[in-house]
């Protein structure tokens, strides 16, 4: 019996050791450093957006103990991902689980590994839930994600989630949803890394409003065919919304005939391909339904 536990214990330690050369320390904030994963041998590192409090003077620490400057290639708050570049010949990417999360099941054993300090650190847990296509509270799109019960020690964000075969399932973050340990899967990582390498950010279309869902009066519900709309509670100065004559207190009903029932409808509508497009905006103002045109901008 002891032998079995020893075997498990040794196997866990061996898994951590095998993956740790591919995990770096990311020093980009005053408090504790965080973690990053070696993406490719040409110097690309992926990490979490929220652990970068500065865009410059970022340093990355390797397994060898070597520390070197890193440049920020791009960052995206909505998926909490960032891409760095270092000039090092000593980079060893970990083995990724392919294809993506196909083999992952709820209940599987997983390790979170990080390098907030000199050496790799690890916590153990299980896969609690598998999610598909989830829009984050800030409007990012995760194709797939894993929710686990691993304890995310300070500085673990940006590090990998590792399965029992020692393969990396994705990048851990504790910031996408407060109180939860989420792992962004490789499909999303690949998409975001490619976009960040190409543009430095994820381009999104933009109206310049913040909204809150409100229940429409019964008479209006019948007329517009929906129960709720989006009350504009701020309209940014010089924003596309202001230039399109939208006012604080208007209630958004539809954009190009797509009903706006909750903030997620709006986030989904504001995709990259709508930058520069003229859209028909249906609103309720002073109890009257009216329509006007707004030219969608690009988020600064």
């Amino acid at each position, binding site marked *: 019996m002891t032998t*079995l536990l020893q*075997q*498990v214990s*040794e*196997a*866990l330690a*061996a*898994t951590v050791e095998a993956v740790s050369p591919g995990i770096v320390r990311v020093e980009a904030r005053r408090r504790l450093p965080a973690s990053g994963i070696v993406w490719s041998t040409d110097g690309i590192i992926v990490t979490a957006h929220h652990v970068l409090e500065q865009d410059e003077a970022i340093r990355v620490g390797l397994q060898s103990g070597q520390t070197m400057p890193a440049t920020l290639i791009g960052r995206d708050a909505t998926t909490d991902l960032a891409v760095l570049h270092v000039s090092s010949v000593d980079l060893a990417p970990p083995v990724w689980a392919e294809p993506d999360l196909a083999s992952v*099941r*709820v*209940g*599987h*054993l997983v390790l979170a590994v990080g390098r907030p300090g000199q050496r790799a650190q690890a916590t153990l847990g*299980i*896969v609690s839930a598998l999610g598909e296509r989830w829009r984050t509270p800030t409007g990012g799109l995760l194709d797939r994600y894993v929710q686990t019960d691993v304890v995310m020690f300070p500085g673990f964000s940006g590090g990998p989630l590792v*399965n*029992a*075969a*020692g393969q990396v399932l994705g990048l851990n973050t504790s910031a996408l949803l407060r109180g939860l340990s989420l792992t962004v899967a490789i499909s999303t990582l690949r998409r975001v890394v490619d976009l960040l390498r190409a543009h430095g950010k994820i381009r999104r279309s933009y109206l310049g409003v913040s909204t809150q869902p409100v229940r429409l009066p019964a008479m209006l519900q019948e007329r517009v065919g929906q129960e709720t709309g989006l009350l504009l509670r701020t309209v940014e100065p010089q924003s596309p919304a202001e230039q399109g004559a939208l006012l604080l207190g208007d209630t958004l009903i539809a954009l190009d005939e797509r009903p706006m029932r909750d903030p997620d409808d709006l986030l989904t509508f504001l995709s990259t391909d709508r930058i520069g497009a003229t859209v028909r905006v249906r609103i309720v103002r002073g109890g009257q339904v009216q329509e006007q045109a707004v030219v969608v901008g690009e988020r600064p």
Partner: protein
Amino acid sequence: MSHILQQMSDAMAAIVERVRLSLVQLHNGRHGMGAGTVWQADGLIVTNAHVV
């Protein structure tokens, strides 16, 4: 080396898989959602009072 970890991992996932058929999701008609466990094959389900 990690063969034993994979065995253990698969065994844990298999347990979840096995009890999944006895697990139901409850909607209370408002915003709430909860879980329930099948008590008898003829349709009896047990859950927490605060869920209903």
